[in-house]
């Protein structure tokens, strides 16, 4: 333990804590071996306080949170104590736990896509959470659901309520999850990476909402996040975890100002930074540059990816009208170019990525990749093209087969397209695991036995296994802490310089985009509203939406972030 008892505390510290974790240890049994995920963790959380749990991916943040709810899988052994307002939760009666869950503790799970039941509508599932703890009528619950969905910034609450999980984008699901978690005005909100799938504008809204809830309801928030910007924005206290152990515990302001532990310093150091925001009015919008950039040195290469007027509709259910996810998008990616796709949640980014891989049919327009028209390709052509393709899905949890070990998943492209087998294959898998900062002992685990960030890295490892010519990466670092993220980004960059692949990089993290991208395309409601060299777009946005986006991006400095917040407020109110 590095926390000294003489730690300075907020004034509230005199009150007895709402949530007190003492000496918590969690062990998992994996195939007869015992793996310790959390050891001797102690911290306290008071009402009206936001405690940020930060740390490396796989350091035990989610496990700690789940332990409080008694929701760890049966293979977990929990010891220590967790009390909620004085009541012990570890080993508590089911009826007590039931009351606590949902009623006193609301939970936002890390991976919203698998955390929602695929066979019930969103509306159903949120209403159920309300009705589990409040004696309200069906219609009252439904009305409240719509209200909640609107609160979390969903444009069309009625449609979202009617939708099944598979019909929504990652960010929409995440917000539905948040709506569900706060539906019963809990005393404590456990928010496990609540904004990973959200673009910064929406994220800012959600953070505002959390702040509001905190002040209004005196709600405590246990915020798990890797985004130091978010920490800077809302957290009062910060607990830094590493490898299952708490390495530092401090007031947020203090931590950012003077991190004491070496790991914390490294963490903060790794935070990518955005250029200074120009808070003046955006320049008059010029039409987005659709025509390809003039090529530098006459290497008359045709672009690797060429989208022409692509439209993607999702067929509506039963009587509903089809949903237009992508609307008349034209885009190209040149050889060795990294194009970032940013945009509001639900604007069609993932859909576009999938269309590119030929996984959703395009309603109109053409998608050409390496000279092959994806829509009309023969099976053989498609296979050939896909052997050159790496793809990281937005939701790593569901993109890994639950029944196969991650080693097998990573080895899959190797088995498919190379004749690497046996030991050689295993060595290659280990290399890949190492490249994404995962210990090779995780090779024989199943996705279920890993943390969110670990799964995401497995997905990345799989995508780069063949050194693809084209990489489609849908929020590939959303679940990664900044230090790991930095290394992954570096990996991508070095791979790119080595193999020169093209990349469609979907992200909501503008700082990352800034670091990595050659070009940026901004998607808004299915349309590309702005496109250009990364530097231009991020420094001198022409479209108001882009400006808003930039303004909303948090930075890892509480003082500066407060300024930005104010600026963002001003911008949003101006544009509305």
């Amino acid at each position, binding site marked *: 333990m590095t926390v000294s008892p003489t730690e300075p505390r907020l004034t509230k510290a005199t009150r007895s804590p709402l949530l007190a974790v003492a000496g918590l240890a969690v062990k998992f049994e994996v195939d007869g071996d015992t793996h310790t995920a959390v050891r001797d963790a102690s911290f306290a959380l008071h009402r009206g306080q936001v405690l940020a749990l930060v740390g490396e991916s796989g350091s035990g943040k989610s496990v700690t949170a*789940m332990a409080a*709810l008694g*929701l760890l*899988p049966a293979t977990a052994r929990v010891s220590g104590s967790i009390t909620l307002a004085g009541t012990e939760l570890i080993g508590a009666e*089911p009826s007590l736990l*039931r*009351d*606590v*869950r*949902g*009623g006193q503790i609301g*939970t936002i*799970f890390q*991976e919203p896509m*698998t*955390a*929602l*039941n*695929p*066979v*019930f509508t969103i509306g159903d599932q949120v209403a*159920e*959470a309300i009705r*589990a*703890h409040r004696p309200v009528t069906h219609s009252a619950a439904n009305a409240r659901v719509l209200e909640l969905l609107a609160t979390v910034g969903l444009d069309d609450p009625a449609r979202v309520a009617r939708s*099944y999980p*598979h*019909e929504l984008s990652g960010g929409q699901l995440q917000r539905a*999850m948040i709506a*569900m978690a706060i539906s019963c005005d809990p005393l404590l909100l456990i928010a496990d990476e609540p904004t990973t799938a959200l673009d910064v504008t929406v994220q800012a809204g959600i953070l505002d909402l959390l702040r509001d809830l905190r002040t209004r309801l005196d709600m405590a928030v246990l915020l798990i996040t890797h985004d130091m910007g978010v920490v800077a924005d809302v957290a009062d206290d910060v607990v830094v975890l590493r490898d299952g152990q708490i390495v530092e515990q401090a007031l947020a302001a203090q931590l950012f100002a003077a991190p004491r532990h070496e790991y914390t310093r490294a963490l903060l150091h790794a935070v990518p930074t955005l250029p200074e925001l120009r808070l003046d009015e955006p320049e008059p919008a010029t039409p987005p540059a659709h025509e390809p950039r003039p090529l530098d040195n006459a290497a008359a290469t045709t672009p690797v990816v060429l989208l022409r007027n692509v439209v993607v509709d999702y067929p509506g*259910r*039963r009587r509903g009208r089809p949903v237009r996810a992508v609307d008349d998008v034209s885009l190209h990616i040149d050889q060795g170019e990294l194009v970032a796709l940013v945009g509001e949640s639900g604007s069609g980014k993932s859909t576009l990525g999938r269309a590119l891989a030929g996984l959703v049919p395009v309603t109109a327009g053409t998608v050409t990749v390496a000279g092959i028209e994806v829509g009309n390709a023969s099976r053989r052509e498609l296979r050939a093209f896909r052997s050159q393709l790496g793809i990281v899905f937005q939701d790593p*949890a569901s993109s890994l087969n639950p029944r196969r070990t991650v080693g097998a998943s990573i080895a899959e492209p190797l088995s498919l397209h190379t004749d690497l087998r046996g030991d050689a294959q295993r060595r290659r898998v280990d290399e890949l695991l190492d490249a994404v900062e995962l210990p090779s002992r995780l090779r024989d685990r199943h996705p*279920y036995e890993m943390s969110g960030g670990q799964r995401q890295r497995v997905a990345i490892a799989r995508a780069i296994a063949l050194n693809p010519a084209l990489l489609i990466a849908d929020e590939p670092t959303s679940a990664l802490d900044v230090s790991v993220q930095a290394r992954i980004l570096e990996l991508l960059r070095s791979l790119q310089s080595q193999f020169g692949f093209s990349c469609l990089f979907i992200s909501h993290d503008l700082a990352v985009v800034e670091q990595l991208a050659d070009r940026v395309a901004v998607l808004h409601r299915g349309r590309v509203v702005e496109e250009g060299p990364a530097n231009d777009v991020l420094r001198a946005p022409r479209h108001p939406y882009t400006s808003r986006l930039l303004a909303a991006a948090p930075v890892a400095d509480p003082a500066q972030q407060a300024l930005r917040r104010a600026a963002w407020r001003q911008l949003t109110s101006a544009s509305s």
Partner: protein
Amino acid sequence: MKLLRLVSGRLLSMIVTLLVISLITYVVFVLLPSDPAQLSCGRPCTPERLADARAFMGYDQPWVQQYLAFLGGIFTGRTFGSGAAAVHCAAPCFGYSFQLNESVTHLILERIPVTFSIAIGAAMLWLIIGVGTGVISAVRRGTAIDRAAMTFSTIGVSAPSYLVGLLGILLFGFTLDMVPVNGYVPLTEDPVGWLWHLVLPWCVLALISAAVYARLTRGQMLDVLGEDYIRTARAKGLRERRVVGRHALRNVLIPVVTVFGIDLGSLLGGAVITERVFSMPGLGALLLDAVGNVDLPLIIGVTLFSAFLIILANFLVDLVYSVLDPRVAR
């Protein structure tokens, strides 16, 4: 609109399927060594009389022609024989049983209430018991309850229905004298008697099938209970009963419903052995007699009817599917 198109599409393919089944049945029947004409030739039988009987029943025709006549009869009705003894079977005519002197349609309609009473009651019972046991077993997996339920269901799975029926009759009918041993009382005549006579057959069928459903449900349930969304449901503070009974079960039911559709469909076509043991004049008993008497029209009729029910049940399963699982909906 969509539904309408779906239904009409299925209807068409259903008709094609039934045609194929009837055709195959005809062909198989041609291969059958037994000779229906011989059976109704009497004793002693002379070749001439055999030929007469065959001609009267229409079996002297090549089977293709017989089959076409059968198909024609569905639309136009048919007349067998001539003069005062001629037998007319009005459209839609699915044949006429010479053994029972009755049109096949009439015979089937008469037996439907019996078989449906048995099948629907038993199906309800086994679905509830089977799925219930499976769910409890899965939730309490590894406990004594689980082991006991699964061992018990092993008995159910491996016991022949005739044996279970007979032992049921011996125990509850004779030794304990609780229920009537056999027979059927129409619901319209005596609802209590109806129930009372059906209790045992229901239980027998339910015991056997429930075992299958219990195992199936348990297996699926164990899979589903490990999913993330179950954790979410628990995190909402739902009662375990609701977590299991709503969130998990809905996902578990998808394969169970498939099997249920098949089972219910074929049971509605006649529970041959159970009807026999309990002397219930249902479709199964009718089919058994028809086979015994080599009564081709009746065989075809009952077969087509039960095939129709099975196909219908499968169709309904597909519909239920899209309700249960929005991801499958097209």
